């Protein structure tokens, strides 16, 4: 009994916080827009009983998904979001891994301080930090003024309102999410493995690739997920730092929701976005499980 109760907790959590909201969004995606409060139809009227429910169901259709298929804007936006997320994840990994490695190698008494330094930016609101970047990157901003002062450039660089500014913002914001899980795995790594590798004739570089890299994989994977998934749906950073040509699905979703007041199509966009994110993750986990089974 108690065991069943304990097992049921994560499932209840999943149902309450994922499946039910998803069901609501999915139902919305099958509705039609209307000028009313809320701006869609049909709405479920419980007092109608079973007949009312059947009537409600009969009004739902896949029209909005067909609409998405017909306009290539949506696919381009998905693709461009995934691409931006992929490049940012890669760059965050390239910067984050050495940082995490350096932290794990640092003397024990420093580690707490280093950890603190990684977490410290979270104490300032995310929005304020992005606004600070606007101040740094703008044409009359700190960076350009500094570069002009040193004489490296003759005219201000156009960084704000470009994709470069979006990448800078994303990498800056998401770096801790990459560093922390990698650090957590590297910190637990038993140094005697490395000693054994060196005893067996590995150079330090070889030992890194043969021992440290594979053992840090769980941290790297966790870090990549933590960066990739939210970046795909990122809205705030591209809208504040990006230019009008930065096409991301978050912005398209915003337009559907706010400019068109078309909640049903916005929901359909969100459902597809979820599928794009969830399916590769499930496939990845299946593949991991198979790989683990093959090992044992």
């Amino acid at each position, binding site marked *: 009994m108690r065991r069943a109760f304990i097992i049921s907790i994560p499932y209840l959590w999943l149902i309450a916080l994922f499946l039910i909201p998803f069901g609501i969004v999915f139902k919305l995606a099958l509705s039609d827009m209307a000028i009313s409060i809320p701006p869609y139809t049909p709405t479920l009227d419980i007092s109608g009983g079973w007949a009312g429910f059947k009537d409600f169901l009969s009004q739902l259709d896949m029209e909005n998904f067909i609409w998405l298929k017909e306009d290539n*804007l949506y696919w381009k936006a998905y693709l461009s979001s995934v691409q931006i997320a992929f490049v940012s994840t890669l760059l965050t990994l390239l910067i984050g891994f050495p940082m995490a490695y350096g932290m794990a190698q640092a003397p024990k008494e420093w580690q707490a301080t280093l950890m603190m330094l990684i977490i410290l930016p979270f104490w300032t609101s995310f929005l304020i930090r992005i606004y600070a970047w606007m101040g740094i990157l703008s044409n009359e901003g700190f960076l350009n003024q500094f570069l002009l002062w040193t004489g490296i450039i003759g005219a201000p660089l156009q960084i704000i309102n470009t994709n470069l500014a979006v990448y800078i913002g994303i990498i800056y914001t998401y770096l801790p999410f990459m560093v922390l899980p990698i650090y957590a795995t590297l910190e637990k790594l038993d140094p005697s493995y490395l000693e054994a590798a060196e005893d067996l004739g590995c150079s330090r570089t070889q030992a890194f690739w043969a021992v440290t890299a594979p053992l840090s994989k769980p941290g790297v994977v966790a870090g990549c997920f933590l960066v990739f998934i939210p970046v795909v749906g990122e809205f705030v950073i591209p809208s504040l730092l990006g230019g009008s*040509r930065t096409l991301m699905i978050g912005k398209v979703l915003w337009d559907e929701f706010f400019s068109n007041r078309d909640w049903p199509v916005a929901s359909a966009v969100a459902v597809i976005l979820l599928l794009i994110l969830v399916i590769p993750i499930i496939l990845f986990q299946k593949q991991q499980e198979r790989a683990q089974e093959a090992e044992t």
Partner: protein
Amino acid sequence: MKLSLTTTIAALLASTLMAASEEVRVYNWSDYIDEALLTKFQDETGIKLIYDVFDSNEVLETKMLAGSSGYDVVVPSGAFLSRQIQAGAFQKLDKSKLSNIGNTWDDIEARTDVYDPGNLYSINYMWGTTGIGYNVGKVKEALGDNAPADSLALVFDPANMAKLKDCGVYFLDAPTEMIPAALKYIGEDPDSKDIDVIKKAEAVLTSVAPYVQKYHSSEYINALANGDICVAFGWSGDVLQARDRAAEAENGVEVEYAIPSEGALMWFDQMAIPADAPNPDGAHKFINFILDAQNMAAASNYVYYANGNKASEPYLEEDVIGDPAIYPPAETVSNLYVTTAYGPKAQRVVTRMWTKVKTGQ
């Protein structure tokens, strides 16, 4: 320790009780009031005022249509107001609670009647035009002394825009403002609901899109004032606020506002009370407070927008009432146009076109 805990709890309770006392939540456009008025309202009425801001009608409309926004007074623009009235988002004003109702300006009410027949649901807060804000020195530098700063050609002729690109041009991120302007430029009806006509605006907007640095509806105030950009297609008072900020900063930036000679959009921001407002009584008190001639004048003197309050005129400063960019002379007014709401189908075309213009997709 115990004592301090008790006091903390007492303080918390007290503050919740205070919160339980009367409060009014107002949702208005950003940079749109003299903040001294907010304190004045609280001092005069003892009602706690919570004042939030937005910078696009779309954001407000989504909150209204979602329902239970929690706001008591909101300030949508004409076309959006009329659609929200249709959706049942507002309650009729109880004019018996508005002792200052006689202060309103009938000329303005005659115009807002299009959106809110009989002015039953709303009262004009402020009105203005959408036009060209420019950095005098930089535009001269880019286009010479004869720069057509008072013509839509400045922003819709690719030849001019190509020269302005390097000093920076911002457009409003509001298709309902930009598309009518583009239609006006090519001599079409700016308020057209005909999809074929609306689509003609696309070519105009696309031809200058490569030269637009950003589409945004509030950042241009600071960008103009700092000298980051040289032209913004934006709202009259916002540009004039930029002019003042630049003057105050003494940074050598001179900003001017021009109503395009081809004609400009005249818009009206209307105070209304949501149907589900938690405190409609307080909302009426707030609207009545704003309707007071001196308060309304203080707001206009501060934000450089004309208001719909005839009685406030004696209290307006000379650089407000005397500025043709704020209170345009009759012949300019006759050249201004208004727009009404798009239906769902035209709206979708408009939004899609806008995305295409902005992103090239």
